[in-house]
């Protein structure tokens, strides 16, 4: 059980964005999706979310093919946080979190169990330690607070799979660490696209390394984050150290990028 990707391929106008990506991610694990810009990370997340349809191959969640689910059914099981999303109208934090209840509304006008949705939304805010923000206007929040609220919105969807596209973008170090710590504490199966290899090493159980639409490596951080693979994919020289508190690798980059990267 968990997420099974079986030879997923996707192309736009004949350009291959993803080719034959297969992986198996157990329930409850946090997976880091790594790779240079344009490697296909966001596309893979959109395919797994069921928003885009793969040209070939399938993605399955707990044995159910995601592409075969009606959109609303998929949204009850999978939540996606996109990069840098911002609403077009002034919304309060609670209103943003309540959006996560939309896939669960039953009647056409939305269910009349408004109080029930409210309880779930407030719980979700509490989960990410943002209860105090409930009545604030979204636009007055800091980047870290906005991401936290977005995670609460996703959790209000009560998903069994959480997808995050570069959730630490534009956040300061302390906000990055607390956000990823939060994702781990949720205990939900998560896949997140990340740029920072050290954050991936510290917070992920499993790493998928993509390059130009192909899956180059899959395994634990220690297995995937090697000087050879990092050099081949990112074209940078690095050393792998042991974290002083043990447990996960630390990547120390050589001062300048290796020359001759395509």
């Amino acid at each position, binding site marked *: 059980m968990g997420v099974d990707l079986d030879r997923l391929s996707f192309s736009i106008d004949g350009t291959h964005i993803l080719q034959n990506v297969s992986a198996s991610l157990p329930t409850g694990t946090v997976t880091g999706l790594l790779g240079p810009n344009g490697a296909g990370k966001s596309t893979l997340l*959109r395919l797994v*979310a069921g*928003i885009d349809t793969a040209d070939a191959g399938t993605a399955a969640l707990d044995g159910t093919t995601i592409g075969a689910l009606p*959109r*609303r*059914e*998929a*949204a*009850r099981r*999978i*939540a*996606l946080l*996109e990069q840098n*999303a*911002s*609403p*077009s*109208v*002034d*919304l*309060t934090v609670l*209103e*943003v979190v309540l*959006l*996560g209840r*939309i*896939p669960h*509304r039953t009647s*056409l*006008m*939305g269910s009349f169990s408004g109080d029930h949705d409210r309880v779930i939304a407030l719980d979700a805010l509490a989960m990410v330690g943002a209860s105090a923000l409930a009545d604030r206007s979204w*636009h007055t929040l800091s980047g870290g607070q906005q991401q936290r609220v977005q995670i609460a919105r996703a959790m209000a*969807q009560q998903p069994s799979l959480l997808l995050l596209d570069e959730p630490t973008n534009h956040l300061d170090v302390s906000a990055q660490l607390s956000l990823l710590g939060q994702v781990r504490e949720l205990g939900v199966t998560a896949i997140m696209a990340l740029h920072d290899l050290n954050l991936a090493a510290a917070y992920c159980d499993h790493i998928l390394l993509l390059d130009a639409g192909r899956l180059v490596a899959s395994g634990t951080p220690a297995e995937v984050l090697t000087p050879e693979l990092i050099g081949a994919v990112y074209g940078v020289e690095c050393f792998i150290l042991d974290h002083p508190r043990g447990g996960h690798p630390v990547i120390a980059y050589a001062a300048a990028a290796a020359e001759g990267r395509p």
Partner: protein
Amino acid sequence: MAVTIGPAAVSLAQVAGSIAGHLGIPAEPVPILVDSIVWQLRLPRVLTAALVGAGLALSGAVMQSVTRNPLADPYLLGLSGGASVGAVSVVILGIGFALPAAAFLGALLALIATLSIARVGGTITPVRAVLAGLAIAQLAGAATSFIIFWAAKGDSYREILNWLLGSVAGATWNSVAIAGVAVVVVGTGILLSATRLDAFAFGDTSAASLGINVNRTRWLLLGSVALLTGAMVAVSGAIGFVGLILPHLVRGISGPGHRRLLPLVSVCGALFLVIADTLARTVFDPRELPVGIITAFIGVPVFILLIKRKKSHLWA
């Protein structure tokens, strides 16, 4: 109450009496002249103004949400202009086509034209949409005027003014029926989509991840707006600014949630246009202004305030 205001003095009791009489409810008989002023002239006009106001405000609210464009409005994006071309083709040229259907087709074509001009690299920014809408609206305005001049019957200038600026002066019970059916039928469909409109707050990807079939929903809703706008323009010409400013004003009261916003914006749009039309026919009594002049005089300052006050990121 707006029915009582006008060149001839009519009391509220007489209005009630006239309405009751026509509905077959026993009441104090009303003088025939007063009765025909109320029943034939003023009542259809006030009802048409209310329905058109509701329809335009609702259209604006839906367009702003579905395109995530705070400047979206059937008038600014050229739909009203397109609908006018369709409507005058039927009214003036006598093309054998149902009036509301022709206006709907005009609105739909204008909408498609505006959005395809504004789309560059798969995205539409609010500013590009408004510029494209401006071009389409100008073209449609020219086409409307040309058709009226070409046909050259009656008072062309007045006719052109009424279509381009909008007026409910000629409203009949037929107008009430067209606008009423459109507002009730299309409006109900839109109200039932309130939750889906909420889901668009963070954009298409977010709406899709909340379980919305984005493309189908967007085109259904925009098609509904074209239908609604077509019907409104068919009875009143192109009245501006109602669809643009009312959603912004009402959001301040109702909040951004569409389940409260949509009904409230309809009611406020109706009140707004009834008041504007009452001003239009009384300010220069006995001469009448096209009501679009009033809505522009009220709407533009409010619009400027909105531009100045809104945080810039909402317009990017």
